[in-house]
């Protein structure tokens, strides 16, 4: 345990300053979600309105919101799980293997790191249409996996490289196949990187806007970021309603995080010297 003797004043100060910075916008989001569009400009933006109500929440829920939420979950999980598995296997191969094919694959992955989504969106659109996948959640999932792979491979490969060679040697001496070694040795030891990659990709896809916009159309396939549309008109944005939908879409995830935080953090720690 670090620094347990003297209270860490500087650390506490910075922490609370940062807390203020984090909390103020969140506070604003909550009180605004309780206002109505007509009183929104009339009241002090930093104070709750005297007649706060849940009208905006009712409005949001009635606009097909649960459906969008479910779609977002399906897309996020459906992207993250395959990405992590595929990227892990590829990273393992690149680190443990040799030969031209793998070196070439590695460089190819690296070149895919900074692909700007807006640029490739039209060719992707064409491919999806030809595959007859337009307006399905799979249309969002497949390209999302493809774009998430390069960075995941990079991060995972860096981590796998760090696993002591002695451990691999001892596995091999015991007669384990590469496949077994991969899942039984490397996979558990790479847990921190796996968690990092999962969270990063999960959040990217959860908030992803462009792919759902281009590759889906009907409201039944919409994801949460598109749901904010309902409140964005040609000329104006119903800010309180947007804030209500933000609260509704974030709350379940916050609860999930609060409950699963211990697991998450312990997943990020792994020791090699067991």
């Amino acid at each position, binding site marked *: 345990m670090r620094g347990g003797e003297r209270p860490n004043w500087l650390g506490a100060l910075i922490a609370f300053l940062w807390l203020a910075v984090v909390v103020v916008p969140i506070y604003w989001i909550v009180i605004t979600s309780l206002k109505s*569009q*007509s009183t*929104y*400009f*009339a009241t002090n933006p930093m104070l709750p309105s005297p007649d706060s109500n849940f009208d905006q929440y009712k409005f949001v829920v009635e*606009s*097909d919101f649960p*459906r969008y939420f*479910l*779609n977002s979950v*399906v*897309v996020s*999980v*459906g992207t993250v*799980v*395959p990405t992590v*598995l*595929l990227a892990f296997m590829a990273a393992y191969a690149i680190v443990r293997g040799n030969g031209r094919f793998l070196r070439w694959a590695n460089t190819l992955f690296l070149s895919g790191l900074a692909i700007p989504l807006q640029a490739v*969106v*039209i060719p992707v*659109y*064409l491919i999806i*249409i030809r595959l007859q996948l*337009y*307006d*399905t*959640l*799979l*249309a969002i*999932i497949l390209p999302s996996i493809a774009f998430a792979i390069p960075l995941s491979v990079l991060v995972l490969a860096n981590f796998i490289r760090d696993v002591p060679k002695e451990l691999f040697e001892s*596995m091999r001496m*015991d*007669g*384990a*196949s590469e*496949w*077994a070694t991969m*899942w*039984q040795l490397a996979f558990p030891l790479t847990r921190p990187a796996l968690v990092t990659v999962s969270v990063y990709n999960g959040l990217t896809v959860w908030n992803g806007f462009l792919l759902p*916009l*281009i590759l889906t*159309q*009907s*409201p*039944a*396939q919409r994801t949460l970021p*598109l749901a904010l*549309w*309902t409140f*964005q*008109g*040609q*000329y*104006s*944005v119903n*800010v309180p309603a947007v804030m209500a939908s933000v609260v509704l879409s974030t709350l379940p995830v916050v609860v999930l995080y609060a409950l699963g935080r211990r697991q998450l953090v312990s997943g990020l720690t792994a020791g090699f010297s067991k």
Partner: protein
Amino acid sequence: MDLKTAGFNTTSRRTFLTAALGAPVLAALVAACGGSGPSRSANSGGGAPGSASYWFLTSQPQEGIRTDAVERFNAANPDQQIAFTTFQNDAYKTKIKTAIGAGEAPTIIYGWGGGTLRSYVDAGQVDDLTPWFDENPAVKDRLFPSAFGPATVDGRIYAMPAETVQPIILYYNKQVFDDVGVEPPQSWGDILDLVPKFNAKGIAPFSLGGQSRWTEMMWLEFLFDRVGGPEVFAAAYNGEENAWSNPAAIDALTKVQDLVKADGFVKGFSSITADSNADQALLYTGKAAMMLHGSWTYAAMSTDGGDFVSTGKLGYTNFPAVEGGKGDPTNTFGNPAMYLSLYSKATDEQKDTAKKFFATGILSDDQIKQWIDIGTVPIVQGTQDMLSSSKDADFLQFVYQLSTTAGNFGQSWDQALSPTGAETLLDNIARLFQLSISPQQFAENMNQVIGK
């Protein structure tokens, strides 16, 4: 422990792999397939495959009026159905472009006409409707003639005008004017006189949502027109070389910068966007005295501004004349209408359905009444009686007068120009208002994209 006995053998490893990868993908497939048929939720609807498709914008109450029109049509025409989907404004603009580019556009293409329509025409993506209008003169004649300008490319009509007319209006807060003891401006000189008077009282002379850029463009449109007449912009639009260096243009550009330098606009205008309605709020909360904005803001101000509109505190007039200017002070700018085009790659059956919809579904009597009820003026001639009996009679009659008696109704520049030109224009306008480029530089930059 001996890893070999505990390890995977070949077949179970394949199973594991398939299961691990297949499960989520399968789940997604199932979920995806479940929802891929036509759905009956509030935002989408319509008939069987083979029916015409129609995409339009969200946001109530306009969305409801458009939806009603389609549903009425579908009910009256059981074997000619229209399937519709709604999109948010910016999302729609990206979406329609991708769709057309990939050859998958809807039958009825909703748009703003002008330069974008021209780009569709040049690419052969929309049908020439002139013959159809010739066969159906009744459809054409009942609409405002000025609505057909933006729908016309090289003398042929490529879109059906629809919905309402939206001129740009100079709004003012009557209460603020009374408090300060001044009259609404009748000329540019008046405006410059009013500026220091309002500033002295801590009230911004003009509200402006500058970050949106097209709000700043409105100022230029009017100044160009009042100083040199519509010919100035027309020259640029028609591709004349160095059209932007016309002395009248430079004069107008200089006047705008004069106003900025005199603190004519609310402090921090470059951070305010129009779509948050913050600029309107400045007017109805009395923090600003005047605002140059589109007629659509009237409805928003009525609902959001408390009793501002209902107690008659909102004043409105046309942009005043500029002393010594050549322009006709009755000229106005804005959106003469919204436009519906016919996708050239749709099937004949779909096109017939669409044309029937144009003739019977758009601006039917029912729809006219709906538009008027929400405080807008449909582009149909002869609705004065209905307007005068509506609850926003004064305003609507003002808009009707303005639109129908204007010497020239100019289309918003960013819609009239090609998308390439529009982008450069908005970019330079933002810099002009930031005072980071001079009028001459503006002219030079714009001259580069003439005809592009």
